[in-house]
């Protein structure tokens, strides 16, 4: 795992679901967290990688980084903004 300059509070894996449930699961996970906490999302390349970070940013959350795992999956780190 890459060096992170923040602490991950929650982790979810959305590789077993497809769009739009990928985004829905991410949104639900963020809803249950506190402002400022960081969510790590394990997601597939392709549609999830294209859509989930963009949709989450549109909601006003902060996309901290998106790391390529090199195996067709990515790690997305999101800081929750708002309550």
């Amino acid at each position, binding site marked *: 795992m890459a060096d992170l300059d923040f602490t991950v509070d929650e982790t979810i894996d959305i590789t077993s679901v497809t769009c*739009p*449930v990928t*985004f*829905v*699961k991410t*949104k*639900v996970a963020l*809803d*249950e967290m506190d402002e400022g906490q960081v969510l790590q999302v394990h997601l597939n390349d392709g549609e999830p990688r294209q859509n989930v970070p963009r*949709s989450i940013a*549109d*909601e006003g959350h902060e996309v901290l980084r998106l790391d390529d795992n090199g195996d067709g999956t990515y790690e997305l780190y999101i800081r929750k903004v708002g309550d």
Partner: protein
Amino acid sequence: MAFTDEQLERYSRHIILKEIGVKGQKKLLAGKVLIIGAGGLGAPAAMYLAAAGVGTIGIADADKVDLSNLQRQVIHTTNDIGKRKVESAAETMRAINPDITVNTYYDFVNSSNIMDLIADYDFILDGTDNFPAKFLINDACVMAGKPFSHAGIIRFKGQLTTVIPGEGPCYRCIFKNPPPKDAVPTCKQAGVIGAMGGVIGSLQAMEAVKYLTGVGELLSGYLLTYDALKMEFHKVKLPPRGDGCAVCSDHPTITELIDYEQAACDMKQ
């Protein structure tokens, strides 16, 4: 309350919406809406509210499904002819969404039962087809402080407004009293284009969803009219709630519910 995976999928198109999201969907699931009339307006409204996951939906109607209803009352099917409308409607709603609770009231609303009927609900939807019922619903909702959606349809026209008692004008602020019996034809006499109930009833469902979730601006203080032949919508600003109203002013002259007489041709045979 956490969503099940099935609920996440069922309501995904709502949850995705920034304005609704997880919190809005939870408000819908906790929401209680009473639909009075399972006819042209109530049918689409009930189906959309059930599909939306409004957790408790009451439906009141004293009629049975008739063949002549099916041209517009899309919640009932040919196989339902002769069934109580509330039962037929409830079956469709539960089939759309087993997640919700449907309460049925096989009864005409009148001055002696309406206060008990509306007491348990957050929002009332008037889907009735006659003036006595519309004035009764207005007065009861004003007295109980219950927000409601008023609507009416006839021929190729429809109208609706949303009443928030104590804030905006009520139905009686606009129309002081019911018209004389037989002065205005009912939709039974005048006819109504089937999709009109779909347009206006769906708008009523939309107002209920917006009220429950707190999203957007309600049609309070406005009357929306729709003329299908001209394909025109007009949003008419209503005068503010004033001192003159017999029921919703600070010094009302109507303090008890009134059962206005129905036109004879509309009475049950």
